[in-house]
């Protein structure tokens, strides 16, 4: 590789940096966006950022996944499977959260005919 690439090669933690960036984008949009569907997307983005972080931290360069077919090698040859397990559990959680939030969105849309959450809050205040 050329010496002009040495700058990018020194950035050893770009996975973590990107995952935090994704998390931050998701968090901000989930907090500030008015559109409920965009909020749901942001929720998934936020969780994906966390999973990328876990997956990146759980992988050690040059090691294999601990799937043993013919005889186990030294423990040093494998990566720890727990972070991947955590990611899977987290995905299950975020799927159920997404489903619940989408169900709420459907109910709100049927009632107020809009996806703008500020508008929905305004309409519900007017109802009282």
């Amino acid at each position, binding site marked *: 590789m050329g010496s002009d690439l040495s700058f990018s090669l020194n950035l050893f933690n770009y996975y973590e940096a990107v995952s935090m960036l994704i998390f931050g984008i998701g968090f901000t949009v989930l907090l500030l966006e008015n559109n409920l569907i965009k909020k749901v997307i942001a929720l998934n983005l936020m969780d994906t*950022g966390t999973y990328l972080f876990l997956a990146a931290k759980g992988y050690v360069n040059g090691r294999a996944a601990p799937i043993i077919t013919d005889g186990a090698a030294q423990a040093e040859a494998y990566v720890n499977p727990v*972070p991947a397990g955590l990611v899977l559990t987290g995905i299950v*959680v975020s799927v159920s959260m997404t489903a*619940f939030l989408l169900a*709420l969105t459907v109910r709100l849309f049927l009632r107020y005919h809009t996806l703008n959450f500020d508008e929905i809050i305004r309409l519900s205040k007017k109802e009282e």
Partner: protein
Amino acid sequence: MAAVQNFPFVVIMLYLTGGVVCSVLRARAAARYCLLLNAAATVLMAMTLAYTLQSGSSYIYLMGHFSAPWGNELRIGPLEALMAVCFCGVMLLTLMGGMEHIFEDCEPGKINLYFGSVSLLMSSIVAILFTNDLFTAYVFIEISSITACAVIAVNYRNGAALVATTRYMIMGLLGSGVFLIGISMLYDLTGHLLFENLGAAVRAISEDAGTLFPLTIIIGLFSVGMGIKSALFPFHTWLPCAHGNATAASSGMLSGLVLKANVFLLIKIFCRIFGLESIVSHHVPDILLVFGACAMVFGSVSALLERDLKRMLAYSSVAQIGYIYLGIGMGTKAGMEAACIQILVHAFTKPMLFCAAGGFMSVSGGSKKMDALRGAARRDPLSGAAFLVGALSMIGIPLFAGFATKLNLTLAALALHGWKTWACVAAIVLSTVLNGLYYLRAAANLCSEPEQPDPKAEPVHARYSWQFVTSMCVFIVLNLYLGICSGRFMDAIHLGLELFS
């Protein structure tokens, strides 16, 4: 292994299966089943508490007998068991007190699902109390979040409840997202998820000065995450809507139990992973103390301005959560004990107030507004008595439960030095005065003669079910018991916190 050691696991499983069983039962059967489940859980947890108090120690319960680094564990000590007994018992009483309103407010075909959600909610609360694994705690936080939203959304013909659920859900998701990233970072630094191993690993890496900043960030993330989940000021905006629009039992269980489980998890993280001294050196408690003090004052002022009884009680919850964080923020053992007793005091008092508010609403045409509720305590004397006891307890009159908090918090504050003492004492005094103002105003409004009695309208009088009467009477007795015998509770809390570190 004594049989009693299995009970925490049995209770969690009973509640989990309860969620499934309730979904196939008819409404009345599901209600009876859920009450029975809570009663059984209370008894089982009381036996566990007696066992841990007798042995004076805590024990680790291995799930599936896999040992430390691989298996999942429960840890049962006197403090967790005490919390679990109180939470299960309060849940039973809250359901009994709000039973009629549940049947009025829910969609007719879906009442059984309400009780299913309540069972799952309780399973997650008990699991959060007992779990010894940080990621398991996260999963159960999310379960409690979904089921808590479900018990608010259950009267979805009411648009305000639906909007409140969505707001609660979004704030909850933000909180648990921050909490999860905290767990991921801590796991990355230490390689452990069980509390004991985490504690040892954190102590080991704390000696390296380079890890101090990441640890501060992680403690901050945990605090913010749990702060959002437990409606600490300035993250409390979702709470008044959510608790003000739910059915009486839901409001009671949400502010009495769900918020507390999250705070308790934060206490567990602080004491068992980082250790109190280390937490204090990161200065996070100072920030919690300031937020707690702000919550106590701001929540009370908002409650004073509120003309809606249930929203007033919800804002009062914001203030009461502030007391808990004030205790945690002191960063001393005494402060932590005061925070724990406040968890119990508020769990005993607020559900009673919400159930009483439900009683007032049903004799006042379903309105929550103060003007419409004028004289409601005359039409419904039992709720009136319960409200008065709750109000006096929240103000902190001696003999009532709230006094135990005020006393222990003030004593803990006086043992501090510097600006903290003044800030704490000022916040406690100011909040007590404000509590007195709005609770007594509400009580006076409820007890006074209605202004212009409509001569044509038939005066509505409360019809009591045995469940409501039992619930209110037991709540009143419990409140007085906690107020008079708070020493016993403090001893158990002291022992439990000693075993934490």
